[in-house]
């Protein structure tokens, strides 16, 4: 016992326990509890009845839910763009250009700004007679006001752009950490062998960044499917169902309409979908990285 108390593993557990307890209460337990909940018509404010798999059956017949899943999958399209642009930005800010720290800070500002504030600013920028429309009209790209957030063909892509704009700085920082972990002697050896700048990126930078790409792809994929704030603030899922995402629909069903049993079932379906996509991403990204040992 005394031996164990002095061991490294005890120290590790002691540090992890508070965090794990919080996770247990606020994350693991709600996930576990949502399973029995999904089998009921729980609404908090009235009597609860067991309904078996009715909620799941209703979910797959619910046109709005299927649309919301489709919109969430469309949202995943931002993931590759987000990764490519943030890697490029990381490479850019990793260079030794004078004043580069200012750029690093500037790119990171949207990350630390609250999503509600960001969404409101974009709503002003994209509204009727807004600065964006004015500038586009001045340069002759458009001939009349575009209703960016009221046009069902545009609204979802506008939201995707806003999400990407806000996330770029965050992923850039992660990739920057990755870039700075790559041993410089690898580059020097390659240069001695006459490798071009492009070959350095393709054969050294990208392979050694793979663990970071995997991590960033995974979290951005999950974030894309779970996107909520910007949709809730800017469009509330509209016009019609054009920007209705799965998280927003689950929120509406649970918190606005008190169908918590049904919302739990929807949450489990979306959770399973995220898990499946994560497994696929894992299978394609198992190699690469720097082995420190």
């Amino acid at each position: 016992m005394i031996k164990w108390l002095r061991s490294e593993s005890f120290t590790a557990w002691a540090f992890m326990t508070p965090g794990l307890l919080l996770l247990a209460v606020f994350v693991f337990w709600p996930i576990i509890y949502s399973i029995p909940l999904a089998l009921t018509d729980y609404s908090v404010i009235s009597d609860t009845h067991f309904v078996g798999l009715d909620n799941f059956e209703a979910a797959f017949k619910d046109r709005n839910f299927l649309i919301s899943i489709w919109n969430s999958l469309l949202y995943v399209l931002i993931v590759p763009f987000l990764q490519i642009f943030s890697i490029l930005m990381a490479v850019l800010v990793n260079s030794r250009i004078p004043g580069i720290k200012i750029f690093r800070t500037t790119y990171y500002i949207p990350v630390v700004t609250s999503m509600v504030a960001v969404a409101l600013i974009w709503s002003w920028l994209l509204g009727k007679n807004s600065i964006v429309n004015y500038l586009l009209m001045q340069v002759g790209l458009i001939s009349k006001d575009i209703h960016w957030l009221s046009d069902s063909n545009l609204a979802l892509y506008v939201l995707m752009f806003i999400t990407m704009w806000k996330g770029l700085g965050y992923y850039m920082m992660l990739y920057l950490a990755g870039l700075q972990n790559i041993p410089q002697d690898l580059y020097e050896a390659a240069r001695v062998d006459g490798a071009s700048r492009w070959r350095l990126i393709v054969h050294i930078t990208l392979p050694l960044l793979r663990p970071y790409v995997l991590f960033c792809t995974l979290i951005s994929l999950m974030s894309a499917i779970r996107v909520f704030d910007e949709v809730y603030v800017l469009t509330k899922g509209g016009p019609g169902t054009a920007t209705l995402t799965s998280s927003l629909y689950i929120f509406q069903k649970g918190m606005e309409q008190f169908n918590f049993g049904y919302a739990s079932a929807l949450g489990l379906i979306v959770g399973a979908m995220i898990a499946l996509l994560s497994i696929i991403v894992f299978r394609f990204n198992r190699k690469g990285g720097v082995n420190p040992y």
Partner: protein
Amino acid sequence: MTKKAKGRLRLLVSMLALVVLLSSCGGGGSKSEKVDGGKVTLQFWTIALQPTFTPYFNRVIADYEQKNPNVKIDWKDYPYDAVTNKLLTSIASNSSPDVVNLNTEFASQMGSKGAVVDMNEHLSPEEKAAYFEGIYNSTVINGKAYALPWYTGTEVLYMNTKLVKAAGLDPAHPPKTREELSEWGRQINRKIGRAGYAQQLVSKLFAVDGIPILNKEKTAAAFNTPEAVTMIDNLKKQMEDGIVLKEDAEFSQQVKYYAGEQVAFELAGPTFINFIKTAAPDVYKNTIAVPVPTGKADVRLSNSMDLVVPAKSAHVDEAVKFAVFLTNAESQTAFSKAANTLPSTKDSIKDPYFTQSDKSLEAQAKVVSAQSLDKATDYMVGVPNAKDVNSAIARALQNMVLNGTDTKQTLTALEQEVNDILKQ
């Protein structure tokens, strides 16, 4: 199983046990009775009324406690966005408040789930008769009244006289019908390039033209009619013609457009005045209030705040009595004077405060809207699962009007969706 795997399994089982143990803490039990030295303590919740109206409530609560020495009122106020979550969590943890201020939609939603007390069981015919019938009936579902109407608001037409005159129109002879309003909007758009008004695409649009949302029994959708197709196609055309702004404009957005003189009109309740006064003092100076142009139904729609008594309240009788006191004519008149709102009681509007105008915009709006209260009806009258129905209708309206989906097909699909909601 390896040693390592066994260790991991043990860890997992221990964590699960801990989670179950923790989650079983709290909750349970029955209704929480709050009796303090023989006194009953009533939890009374309002939405966004502190600190502006604290003096009024302190006065009215003190008055009530003096008249009812066995009752103590514990008043709490929550922001609009927080009250739903707060109420759900308190009901879930069996510490339900006793009297809660909710809007009609939320009250109807809770009523549909059987979560609030039926006021018809507790009120005498005289007490019921004190309220405007159209407003009182707004939360009656299957003969059960799920809320007492409290303060209310009816829409008036706010008009930017500068823009109206610039378009060659005379503000002294305002439009009286929606058709006339439409023509004014067309002329404004043609002459000065602004829109007539902005609006939100909600179920209210059906009510304005007298298209019932549900049948009399409230068991099925009733809006899939040729009149509805005409109304929606007409709205599409108005948007194409620049009479109505082509977007689903929430109230805050409407304030922005009016303040920026992008539109000449606003159809809103009295609260609009304060927003415009703050956002654009110059526009406020040029604004007048006139009776709202009516649609085919010739009704003026009200938008009420209600008081409900949750079914899980431990002191239902005392709670209903307090809710009746707070919504009686005397209390409502005093509150209207303090808060610039409209009362839902018939006797209140006999007060000179609601009949005399000093020509200010606030007074104009108040007098105009108070005189239309007898015609007022809440457009969500007794709709079960009102929130679900409203959100389905709003989505479909946006699809038809903004996304250009076929009106007849979308209405038919919406009818099916609403019928499914009503079966829940």
